[in-house]
């Protein structure tokens, strides 16, 4: 009789347990964070690009306003991080490094590196000057907010 009673109680407890699970799932559900579904549906490559763009936004903001000491250390840091598979970004970084350099020989060496990375940019001098001008326009403080003499002159050393 006791065993039968215990069985019945266990059965009811089991039924209550099973019925309560969906209730708990419902209670525990909170709306997902904004953009979570959008980012989770992307490919791993696309997500890596998004993660990288956060760092780039930080470096770009620094390029716009940071003083020489900050920008030079951040440029070195980013150059060490950006892979060779992204010559476009590396070109931008090297261009920035050349623009903040106050040494014409150093600038010339950096422009040579840029030409190695992006040969198309150096085939026509105007393109190189234009790329440099884009970066100087972004930068709101010196150094780096003016075209260097090496680019203002008639001949480009590469």
């Amino acid at each position, binding site marked *: 009789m006791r065993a039968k009673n215990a069985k019945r109680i266990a059965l009811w407890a089991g039924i*209550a347990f099973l019925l309560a*699970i969906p209730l708990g799932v419902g209670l525990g559900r909170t709306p997902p964070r904004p953009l979570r579904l959008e980012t989770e549906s992307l490919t791993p490559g696309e997500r890596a690009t998004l993660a990288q763009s*956060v760092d780039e936004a930080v470096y770009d903001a620094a390029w716009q306003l940071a003083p020489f000491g900050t920008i030079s250390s951040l440029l070195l840091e980013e150059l060490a991080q950006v892979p060779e598979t992204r010559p476009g970004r590396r070109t931008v970084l090297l261009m920035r490094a050349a623009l903040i350099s106050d040494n014409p020989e150093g600038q010339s060496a950096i422009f040579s590196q840029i030409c190695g990375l992006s040969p198309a940019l150096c085939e026509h001098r105007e393109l190189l000057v234009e790329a440099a001008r884009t970066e100087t326009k972004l930068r709101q403080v010196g150094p780096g907010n003016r075209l260097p003499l090496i680019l203002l002159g008639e001949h480009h050393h590469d």
Partner: protein
Amino acid sequence: MDGATSPQAPSGTIAPPGPRKRRQLGLALGLGLALGVGVGVALSARTRQDDPMGPRWRIGLALQMGRPTATTLNLGEDVAQVKGALSKEKQGIFELVAVAHGLGSGEGSAQAKEQLETACRRLSWPRCDAEALRALTGGGKP
């Protein structure tokens, strides 16, 4: 046999449970219910677990969207998590970026301007005037 004195219910009917049995049944139901709810909540929490890189992806996407869409998204928690994972030097710059792009709060433009200036001043950078800060928000050089 006298049926009136028998505690047994007539055959074919279910006898109502006694107070002790009722208590035991209530206890079993309560226990089952509590356990079930607990398991349900735990399951729900497990399915909504975020990827550790999730905040970065979302902030990256919001940066691509730009204002004014990013401003409406309320990404404050993600901003705090991404900022916390950065080096000390970059935390202040990221804060500036977040304010410039309207991430984390949907405040009005006057308040946002003030916040932007405050974030810039904290970095002790040479320029934090309105003209320079406009470039950060996409206004560019005049």
